[in-house]
């Protein structure tokens, strides 16, 4: 920074503080805040789904026991008490089927977004930014010290941004549940028997995309 005047350095310090460090700090705070909220909301919904599934199954069991096993109801009984029990049983069974599926979907969603792990990355980056900010130049410094301090401050902030970016990339993974589901779906599709209508016979398994239209190499 040999050619910069004192005034230029002071202006650059203000610009960097607001538009680089300040903006990055706002970003990290915004992300940490929204990820914490999102993780908490999804966790609550997941727990509620489990609770609902368990409660529905237990209540369904109670109704079956009290109305059909020890009670007077039979399936299709037209009496009002039995019709109510039938409807309640249907709703509870539906809930017992839907709630675990929704809970499972929310678990996979949380794995996809990795909120909890990313909060740690951004929170650490926020702390490291505070450390870089501590090196920011002071107006009382002489020109040489000011220059060195400004370089350390800006380089330190850019390094925090670089480190955060690297860690973020390593955290992003496709959830295993999705890979497992796709494998089972492909296995199911592969097992479908196509009636022989005299047309070309598929080579088996799932078709592979062939955007160029060229025949596959190797002849098989």
């Amino acid at each position: 920074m040999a050619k910069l005047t004192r005034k230029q350095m002071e202006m650059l310090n203000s610009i960097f503080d607001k538009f680089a460090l300040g903006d990055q700090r706002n970003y990290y705070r915004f992300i940490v805040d929204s990820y914490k909220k999102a993780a908490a909301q999804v966790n609550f919904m997941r727990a509620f789904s489990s609770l609902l599934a368990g409660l529905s199954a237990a209540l369904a069991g109670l109704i079956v026991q009290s109305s059909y096993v020890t009670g007077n109801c039979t399936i299709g009984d037209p009496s009002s008490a039995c019709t109510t029990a039938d409807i309640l049983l249907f709703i509870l069974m539906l809930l017992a089927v839907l709630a675990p599926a929704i809970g499972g979907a929310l678990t996979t969603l949380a794995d996809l977004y990795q909120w909890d792990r990313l909060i740690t990355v951004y929170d650490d980056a926020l702390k490291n930014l505070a450390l870089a900010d501590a090196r920011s130049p002071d107006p009382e410094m002489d020109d040489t010290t000011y220059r060195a301090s400004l370089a350390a401050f800006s380089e330190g902030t850019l390094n925090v941004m670089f480190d955060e970016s690297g860690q973020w990339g390593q955290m992003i993974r496709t959830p295993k549940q999705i890979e497992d589901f796709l494998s089972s779906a492909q296995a199911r599709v592969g097992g479908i028997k196509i009636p022989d209508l005299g047309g070309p016979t598929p080579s088996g398994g799932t078709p592979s995309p062939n955007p160029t239209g060229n025949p596959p190499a190797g002849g098989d």
Partner: protein
Amino acid sequence: MVQPSKKTLKVGLPNSQSSNRSRDKWPAWAKQLPYFRLPPPKADFTLIDREEMRRLLSGMDSPEPDSRQATVQQNQTDGAALQAIEADLEVLERELIPLFRERDREAKVQQNRYRLYQISFIALSAVATILGSLLAVALNRNPPLVPVIAFGETLVALLATFLAQISGRESPFPLWLANRRAAESLRREYFRFLMHLPPYEALDGYKRRILLAERAALINRGTAPDDKLTSTLNEANQPAAGGD
């Protein structure tokens, strides 16, 4: 928790190319769900808003000048410093910002695509679980429904395979990561140039501008410029190898 310095206590929204505010009232988790059609970006997006910068700099404290001549001299110094910074910003707007906008936008598009596919798989997986449970219930209570539910399960598997085929041709995941890395690298390069940090600190004039253009192009191409700090321009100025 971090204790912010006094000058930055006010927390604002981060500067972003996205202009959409339609999900402001949604729950935090739902705000992050992908879009079927990504909202258009801000056309004039840049990393430093000039008007805001001028307002910031005009509010800077200056020592009180002791004479009329000193005031004129100080105004000239301020004007020259601001002019030099504005000139650097012009270069950045021309050489780097278009690439940044492109990479940032592409990263958002690929991230949205990736999440859209993944969430479709999650939804299909949930439907498959529900159908599986219904199938178990139907086996006992309503056997005629069994083939219909089994057909539904096959339909879900077919849809999932179809989506997997589509997403596999130009996989959005590596494209998202590569574009995001390039965009963030360009952002750092922007401030590296503006702050006269290495490798820009010793260069001046057209050499400095060419080095910026070259490094920005390298980042845009996916080559980390830190692996190739010396530009062809610098190499040309270096003495022949073996000198040290």
